[in-house]
């Protein structure tokens, strides 16, 4: 049986039909696993009224690579769901702040573990769950809690997404993915939470069977589209993170 190839020739082609109003999950934590090339393609593609799910929106570092903050600045984003919606250091600035303050973008702040588990639940067919995280805080105000075994827990709902953008180290042509080191982060759970999964891949595609089944982190059944990242400068590859001055490390 002939199967349509999951391999796309360009990032432009891979994101071409993403409609306005989509909910898109962006993998990555610091620089590892961030789908830089797919973000760059989405900036050019121009889909609007997007809801973006991400750990952070970026834009605090001087050596800026494509990030969610750029989609915000490009007028493509209506809502951001993230574990960081403002900097924790008074000296830091992120592009999102201005748009939130002006009421142009809605920002939903979610604790990182709750963000991860809401995605995992969506991918696991679980509509909601209870967590001890954020109980007693401003985030839990007016929301449903329940006591189990003498401890109070907060109700959280699954977070299904339309599209997930991933970055993987290796992939076979069927879409089985292998991530390297901390590149894995949100990638596998965002893949499972999404209806459409698009992956930028760092190494040349290999044939099915060349990645041992025991080594597959995300099975190909979750993956629809893949693009091999070209060498720099055509393809985007993260460099080293610049050192921060120690004086700027302060929390407030």
């Amino acid at each position: 049986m002939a199967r349509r190839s999951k391999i796309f020739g360009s990032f432009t082609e891979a994101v071409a039909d993403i409609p306005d109003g989509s909910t898109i999950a962006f993998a990555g934590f610091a620089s590892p696993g961030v789908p830089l090339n797919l973000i760059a393609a989405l900036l050019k593609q121009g889909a609007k009224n997007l809801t973006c799910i991400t750990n952070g929106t970026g834009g605090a570092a001087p050596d800026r690579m494509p990030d969610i903050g750029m989609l915000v600045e490009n007028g493509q984003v209506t809502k951001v769901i993230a574990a960081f919606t403002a900097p924790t250091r008074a000296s830091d600035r992120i592009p999102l702040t201005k748009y939130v303050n002006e009421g142009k973008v809605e920002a939903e702040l979610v604790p990182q573990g709750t963000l991860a588990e809401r995605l995992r639940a969506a991918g696991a067919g679980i509509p909601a769950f209870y967590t001890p995280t954020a109980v007693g805080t401003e985030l839990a105000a007016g929301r449903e809690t329940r006591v189990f075994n003498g401890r109070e827990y907060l109700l959280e709902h699954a977070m299904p997404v339309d599209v997930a953008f991933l970055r993987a180290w290796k992939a076979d042509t069927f879409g089985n993915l292998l991530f390297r080191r901390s590149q894995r982060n949100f990638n596998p759970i965002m893949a499972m939470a999404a209806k459409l999964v698009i992956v930028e891949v760092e190494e040349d595609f290999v044939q099915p069977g060349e990645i041992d089944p025991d080594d597959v982190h995300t099975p190909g059944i979750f993956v629809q589209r893949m693009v091999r990242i070209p060498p720099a400068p055509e393809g985007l590859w993260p460099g080293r993170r610049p050192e921060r001055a120690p004086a700027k490390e302060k929390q407030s």
Partner: protein
Amino acid sequence: MSGTKGLERQQIADRVAQEFQEGWIVNLGVGMPTMCSNTPIDTDLIYHSENGVIGYGPVLPAGQEDVHLVNAGGQNVSLKPGAAIVHHADSFAIIRSGRIDVTVLGIYEVACNGDFANWKVAGANGGGIGGAMDLAACAKQVFVILEHTTRDGSPRLLRSCSLPVTARGVVTLVATNLGLFKPLGDRFLLREIAPGVTVDEVRAATGAPIEVPDNLPVIRTL
């Protein structure tokens, strides 16, 4: 910290690191807490970071970084033999199920009832929670590190937090440039005092009652 009384930043972190027990799984927050991993201690620890790295080692020097490997602060770290990597949901399963022995967090304020605040500054629209709320709610112990007062001299150890809290009643150890404290509900116990600092100075810089034991130990710097 130059110009501030008491301990330097690394010395505060050093004192906290000496509290770690053999075999503990330790999660260090961004900022001063990460400096705990610079302390030369013999204790065999497993460092966990939110992005799923279990068993990371020192930050690698420029030119030797692995671009695929960072800790929670985005620093390019190394892996110790026996390290393992999991995805984000499993990383927080480790946290939520109570397997982290201690988390050390940099914070804005702490109250003597064990509440603390570190995600939203006054007047901000939104905040930066990261993994702090999960860690604070679920780690076996929560140690916090902060400078004793704000830049304008206002106390940051208080009767109750003025900023939105990260978690309630969870802090077991407070380390500042002036000393080492334990929240006792309606007061802080001054466990140890920084060299060159007086009890009166500590009291004057603190926004909550301080209990001072007889024979108050002075923090030994490394």
